[in-house]
């Protein structure tokens, strides 16, 4: 049978190997830093070319919280600038938005004009929900046109739900762990109640 102890890249160190004097220090990460790292990791976990994510800020505007590369950053920045795109749509409706060929998606022509020349082929946007309200989106990007499979859509949605679960903790008032502005969600919902209402209305 083909089983074995597997190579573990450069992360690991066998127990019998050279020892170190003490554990290396834990990286000091803020809640926002942890969130950004989780968004960046999504590209490799979901096995797509790029991933970015946006969240509503305290003023009710979507803001970038993480991007795995320049393409993902451009995708998020352009959607924010245009106030339009599959990610914005996913946040407004609380539903997944799958775009198989951005160049042929007339619905987001302005976005396509900016993104297709730099490698935006297909986009899959999954809403990020906190306490059952859509407060942002996770965008998976393929550099070539790609018909997203049901399995890929479920996987991206599951990753977005995990981010939402993390945010549910961050959104609670705490005195010992200041919440970064981008995850201060209660004021955002107060400013944009229609976002919640639309999301709930569309939910089966």
């Amino acid at each position, binding site marked *: 049978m083909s089983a074995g102890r597997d190579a573990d890249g450069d992360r690991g160190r066998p127990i019998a190997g050279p020892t170190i004097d003490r554990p290396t220090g834990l990286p000091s990460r803020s809640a926002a830093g942890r969130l950004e790292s989780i968004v960046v990791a999504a590209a490799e976990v979901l096995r797509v070319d790029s991933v970015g994510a946006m969240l509503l800020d305290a003023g009710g505007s979507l803001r970038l919280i993480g991007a795995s590369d320049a393409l993902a950053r451009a995708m998020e920045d352009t959607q924010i600038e245009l106030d339009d795109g599959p990610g914005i749509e996913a946040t407004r409706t609380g539903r997944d938005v799958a775009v198989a060929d951005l160049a042929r998606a007339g619905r987001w022509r302005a976005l396509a004009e900016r993104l297709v020349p730099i490698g935006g082929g297909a986009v899959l946007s999954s809403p990020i929900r906190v306490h059952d309200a859509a407060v942002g989106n996770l965008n998976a990007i393929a550099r070539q046109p790609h018909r997203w499979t049901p399995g890929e859509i479920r996987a991206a949605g599951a990753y977005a739900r995990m981010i939402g679960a993390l945010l549910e903790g961050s959104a*609670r008032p705490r005195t010992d762990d200041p919440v970064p502005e981008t995850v201060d969600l209660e004021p955002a919902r107060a400013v944009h109640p229609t976002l919640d209402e639309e999301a709930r209305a569309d939910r089966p």
Partner: protein
Amino acid sequence: MRRPVPIDPDQLATSLRRLERSGDDPDVLHALGAAVLACVEIFDVAGCGLMVADEHQILRHVVSSDAPGHALEEVEAAHGEGPCTDSFVNNVVTSTQDLASDERWPRTASTIGPLGVRAVLGLPIRLGGVPLGTLDVYRRTPHDWDASEHRALRRYGEVVEIILSSALAAERAGELTQQLQYALEHRVVIERAVGYLMARDQLDAVDAFNHLRRAARARRRKVGDVAQEVLDEHRASGPPTD
């Protein structure tokens, strides 16, 4: 089209309630629960679980997506053998295409096989480079874990590590946090003692590790303390180093 994913919500809820009662940060536990469920969906596996070593260096179940996944963890803890144990002790990803026909862990295989746990992959979960536990996934049919799955799962393990680091950042004196802190403080001395026992007694790492654990249990001591004693005795009896 993928087959429906069998998730046992009662199992997950029970795990989370137990840990929340222990005083751990409910936000972190909530996120870990979501992480194991997401893992099942993302990797199309039958189950996923997270274990963290306790003060006796026994991997203890923290959260799992379903009952067989939980059982796998309990069985490994009882027998001191299995893919997750190897992953934790050796600090490398360890997989099996089919646990039922794998000769490395016969006791675990015979106990867990009837529950439908076949292909298993365990990966070490580390904080600051120190292995503190494992994330494990399983399938109900034999499966050859390919390089793409390995890469993606290792990356997902890093996501779980980020979430776990939140438990320490929250500084709540819960069971999980105490386990993480103890493992961080004592892993290096345990590794050194294991390395010494491997050389002295010609053992592999897991046997040396279990030797330490048995000694600690017999003396009602913590593994970290016994490991330090082993090293101290070695230093006292050995020749001058310079």
